[in-house]
């Protein structure tokens, strides 16, 4: 039996004035999968993410997250939803007047009645899980590097062990080693916690190593499939994307890794 999808988008229309960003866009995100979302700069990936999490109202169409219609949700449902998803924004969006640990405690204190002490310890675990050194917990966002801010943002997104995680370009601006460890972190968390992850990314290595399927935002609509399926696609942009030098290099690297495992 096909399970209810975690996210179901039907006939989405998004426009700013006369500038149409999405039209007749359909997308189903399955429970427990890691879906990579790609598309040219300015094609509306961040706007799509913001629409799914209810920061923007769709001009038409419906969006269901965990079986709840986001657009028509009342405040109690929205509050429940916001405890079931975690969001990592493109540039972290940490609260600048709070330390990293306090940032992670914010969702815990908003949605649970845990004691002060438990909040603090859970927050420290999340900080550690996100791959930050322990002493980063008491630092302010302005004292962190860009990559550390991303990790702190991830720790906050994970604070409530959500069902769905939205990541907007999580590895952009990280060094390759940091990006690779971020990827394996995401994969590990996904396995351990059974997360559904929607990840905007242009990192070919992430697409190949962690994503189960890839959604391509193209001509205001979405085409979705595994990388192998998409490579069969005749659309020139998709062919260029996966068949270009970066795509081929990542594919080769991936093949070497999997071959190495077999032998």
């Amino acid at each position, binding site marked *: 039996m096909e399970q*209810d999808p975690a996210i179901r988008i039907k006939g989405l229309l998004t426009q700013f004035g006369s500038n149409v960003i999405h039209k007749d866009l359909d997308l189903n995100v399955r429970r427990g999968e890691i879906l990579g979302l790609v598309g040219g700069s300015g094609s509306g990936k961040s706007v799509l993410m913001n629409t799914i999490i209810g920061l923007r109202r769709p001009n038409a169409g419906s969006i269901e997250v*965990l*079986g709840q219609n986001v657009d028509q949700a009342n405040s109690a449902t929205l509050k429940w939803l916001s*405890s*079931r998803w975690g969001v990592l924004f493109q540039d972290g969006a940490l609260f*600048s*007047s709070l330390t990293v*640990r306090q940032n992670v405690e914010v969702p*815990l204190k908003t*949605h*649970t*009645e*845990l*004691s002060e002490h*438990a909040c603090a*310890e*859970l927050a*420290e*675990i*999340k*900080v*550690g*899980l996100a791959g930050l050194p*322990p*002493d*980063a*917990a*008491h630092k*302010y*966002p*302005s*004292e962190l590097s860009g990559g550390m801010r991303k990790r702190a943002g991830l720790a906050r997104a*994970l*604070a*409530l*062990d959500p*069902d769905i995680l939205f990541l907007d370009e999580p590895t952009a601006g990280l060094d390759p080693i940091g990006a690779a460890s971020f990827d394996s972190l995401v994969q*590990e968390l996904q*396995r*351990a*916690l*059974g997360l559904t992850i929607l990840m905007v990314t242009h990192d070919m290595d992430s697409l190949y190593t962690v994503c189960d399927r890839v959604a391509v935002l193209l001509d205001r609509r979405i085409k979705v499939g595994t990388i192998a399926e998409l490579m069969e696609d005749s659309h020139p942009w998709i062919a260029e994307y996966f068949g270009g030098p970066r795509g081929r290099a990542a594919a080769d690297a991936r093949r070497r890794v999997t071959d190495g495992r077999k032998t």
Partner: protein
Amino acid sequence: MATAGREAAARLTTDRDGSQLRLLFAGSWTTANLADREAELDGTLNRRALAGVERAVLSLDQVTHFDTAGAWATLRTARRLRDAGVEVAIEGAGADRQRLLEAVEQTEPAPSPPRGLRFPLSFLANLGKLTLTLGADARALTGFLGLTTLVFLRALLRPSRIRFTSLIHHMQKTGVDSLPIVGLLAFLIGVVLAYQGADQLARFGAQIYTVNLLGISVLREMGILITAIIVAGRSGSAFTAQIGTMKVNQEIDAMRTIGLDPVEVLVLPRALALVLVMPLLTFYANIMAILGGGLMVWVLLGIDPAAFVRQLHQSLNVEALLVGMIKAPVFAFVIGLVGCFEGLRTGGNAESVGTQTTRAVVEAIFLVIVLDAFFSVFFSVIGV
């Protein structure tokens, strides 16, 4: 609800068998449910319950949902038991949960934040810090004054360096846009002065001198002070907030790397705009205050406009006007300077934009009033 299973409660049963204790975790051990079980979990671990226990088994078989909070609770229980000298085994964690337990166990607790000083010492330390920063601030502001003056002079020598679009924009914002509020407040101050003066002077039958009082105090002091205070609150704060936000966005750093001088690009047009606009605003405030006072003496004392103007003419000379007006560009420069200076000193976050804006307004008004006192002493010495 599709995920109703998550909402099932977390349950804990303990089962004592001789020296062996079984802790049976069941239900949903997730962040949302943990709050209810926290106290209970601590209760099962007290000294009396543990007396004579040698082995404990934590069984996760019956757990339906398990996340990092559940893992944390399990591990914390295990650690407590071990600390009490009990041998602990965790059972029934499948591969996934085992991995999660390991991941959580590997995270280190953060070192406790550095502790501050206690009361009497902390008071002294703060006092000392404050004194030092006061000195450093004064020095930094003086340095900035020098820097800005240099850029000012350089711009006067080569006016093409002045950004005229920006200058006009700020003259519009700080000058034209503040006409309504400056006019209204000056008018009301005129009303108040006339009312108070008439009240007191009437006791000596010297009502007519209300006009003298009004004219002199408005032209020499009140007009410029009211204007300066409004401009500090309205435009000085805006300067700080604008420049501070740019600082937070690293726009100032970007400017420097492109080879733009923030003092020339940001400070010069703002400060110059204030210097040009403030004398005009002051003159306008003077007129509005005298209008307000004139209306009041007419209503209150029956001195009609013709008599009012005649009396004003007799009591005033051009010096009174100049004494007020000459302060305007000086105050304007100080307000602009402090506003931009505090903006540039903003730290990396949103909160410090707020702090700096408050500081800018307080400092600007403080300096304006101190300078006004100096001007008074100076004018009385030279006998104006």
